[in-house]
């Protein structure tokens, strides 16, 4: 039992094993260090100016990194599945997809948490609600970059720290077999025939989509006056709650299919994707409300601490190009450069036909970042007070 009893040969072989192990460990550490030395050699495009890097330099630089880390991109959201696959095959890159479920604040938190770490948990590119861009910039979490198509992007930060990628509007998603008359506008939702039928697709205290739902209702009531919209929106939903029309449940595809939530208010691209996915089981009707059409753009950015800065820039060159923007359209989301592309006639007619009629979008209201931030604060602080009287 005691160590004195062990044969000498065993003792030696254990020591040898330890030696070999230490040697292997040291070699591995050195090997890990080595490429870093090679990377900082001259020849790679400049990152600090924020100007667009020509593709012939960008693609090889990105390919030498080999990988892109994304976060919060569900495959069924605005056709991100196809966008991701196209990027992978077109540029021969791999993509490490983090946490598709993450919300905008989770994405910013991921950048913050991984500032010092270049590991696989550090995102390179983010896709956040426009209302979060202020925080992202204030906390120094994003790097500036202007893609080649910069000038045709209508909504962006002038220095290049963020830019809008796509937008949608809030629509009524209605289960046809359950509802005889599809509501046409926000005020219709208050009708007694829709008692216990109307739900939001998120939680007001946690989700941008739901805050915008309140805002859009308010916008409809005030006839377009944005300043009074938050208050009017809260009043609207108070009436919805008192009438019993509002079901306090977070709607998702499962609850729609099951029939619990016959009328759901969510982004058009999600509603249309639902319609495709459910394939008539049940049949869905999608209606853009007549008034109170609120556009909700999402903003893209590059992490200031990105482990793969070139791959990140290549991603944006791709996504903001005509090709990438059309992929958004395929997922029923309006690319932010829609108007420019329509003018140049690059939008295929069959793709455009799949969306709700363009006239419905003409009245879409695009709130500014400041408007979004202040209205968001007002709505979340007063939601429970106004609607539930707490």
């Amino acid at each position, binding site marked *: *039992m*005691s160590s*004195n009893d062990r044969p000498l040969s065993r003792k030696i072989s254990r020591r040898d094993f330890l030696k070999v192990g230490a040697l292997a460990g040291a070699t591995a550490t050195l090997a890990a260090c080595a490429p870093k030395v090679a990377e900082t050699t001259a020849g790679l495009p400049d990152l600090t100016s924020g100007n667009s890097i020509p593709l012939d330099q960008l693609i090889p630089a990105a390919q030498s990194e080999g990988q892109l880390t994304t976060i919060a991109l569900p495959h069924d959201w605005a056709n991100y599945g196809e966008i991701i696959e196209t990027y992978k095959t077109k540029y021969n890159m791999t993509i490490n997809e983090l946490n598709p479920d993450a*919300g*905008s*604040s*989770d994405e910013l938190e991921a950048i913050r948490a991984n500032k010092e770490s270049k590991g696989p948990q550090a995102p390179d590119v983010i896709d956040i*609600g426009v209302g*979060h861009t202020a*925080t992202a910039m204030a906390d120094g979490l994003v790097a500036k970059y202007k893609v080649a198509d910069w000038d045709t992007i209508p909504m962006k930060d002038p220095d290049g720290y963020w830019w809008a990628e796509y937008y949608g509007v809030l629509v009524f998603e209605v289960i046809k077999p359950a509802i005889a008359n599809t509501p046409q506008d926000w005020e219709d939702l208050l009708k*007694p025939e829709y*008692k*216990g*039928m109307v739900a939001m697709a*998120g*939680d*007001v*205290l*946690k*989700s*941008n989509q739901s*805050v915008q739902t309140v805002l859009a209702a308010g916008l409809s009531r005030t006839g377009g006056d944005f300043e009074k919209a938050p208050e009017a929106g809260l009043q609207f939903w108070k009436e919805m709650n008192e009438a*019993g029309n509002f*079901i*306090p*449940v*977070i709607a998702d595809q*499962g*609850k729609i299919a*099951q*029939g*619990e939530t016959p009328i759901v208010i969510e982004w058009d691209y999600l509603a249309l994707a639902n319609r495709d996915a459910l394939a008539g089981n049940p049949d869905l009707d999608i209606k853009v409300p007549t008034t109170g059409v609120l556009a909700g753009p999402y903003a893209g950015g590059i992490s200031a601490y990105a482990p793969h800065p070139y791959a990140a820039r290549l991603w944006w060159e791709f996504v903001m190009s005509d090709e990438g923007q059309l992929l958004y359209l395929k997922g029923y989301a309006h690319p932010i450069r829609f108007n420019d592309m329509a003018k140049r006639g690059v939008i295929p007619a069959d793709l455009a036909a799949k969306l709700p009629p363009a006239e419905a979008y003409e009245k879409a209201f695009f709130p500014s970042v400041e408007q979004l931030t202040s209205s*968001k604060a007002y709505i*979340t602080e007063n939601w*429970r*007070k106004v609607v*539930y009287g*707490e």
Partner: protein
Amino acid sequence: MGNNPVLEEKILTKRESKKGSAQPARSPRFDFNWAWLGVAPFFLFALAFLFLPSFSIVVRSFQGVDGSFTFKNIIAILTESDIINAYQASLSISVITAIGGGFFGFLLAYAVILGGMPRGMRTFMVTFSGVASNFAGVPLAFAFIATMGNAGLITRWIEAIFEINVRQMGFSIYTIWGLSIVYMYFQFPLMVLIMAPALDGLRREWREACENLGGSAWQYWRYVAFPILLPSILGTMILLFGNAFGAYATAYAFSGSFINLVTILIGAQIQGDVLYNPGLGNALALGMIIIMSVCMFGYAYMQRKTSRWVR
């Protein structure tokens, strides 16, 4: 629990001889230090990954949105109406499910252990309770919405039989009571799992002795069984209370933040896309920790009282 110094000495000396080293007889003080070393890894791990992060909660409770030291959060949780309502709601749902879960769970445990059921039924119930007590979150919420929601199984049956429209009647399950019914799904089994061994521990001799002395069944329960079981029952009900208070996934999946609970509020403050006041979230968590700690102490205290009988 006292040490037997003679035996200790014998064992120590045996160990020394095994090691083949000649060491002086160990003083009790040295022995004490060496024993503590044995629990050191555990303590260090708990310190690094449990205490320090938890302590940061206390620290951050006093942090304002801009990072400065402030009492605003603590004051907020004691005064703001929606926060007070959240605590009230969480407390009510915990009390409801603790009492309801405790009561019916006890009956279930009684039914399978002492109700004269075939042995298989007891095994089935205990096994199933093990599964059901872990069934929570999104699937549980959906299961109940699919059962008693506006388009649920039971709702459709009722509508068919009584020819009424439940939706038009304005009946909604998304209330504290509705959520309580959902919570019972993991509260009943928990009660069963913990009470089953306790009921098992009621020795048949006691029942027989009672009958021999002329006592009725009621007297048996009133004077023998319940007094013995009471610490166990109370302790488990305290545990059920804590379990319900801390529940998050199920409540959120059921109705988001539309039902105002403390855990939901914490989630919204710390993690949501909309609110962002981690100081307040941490202060809320602090309040919750205090309540839960009281529960855990209560449970541990009751457990010790029980261990006299159930061995």
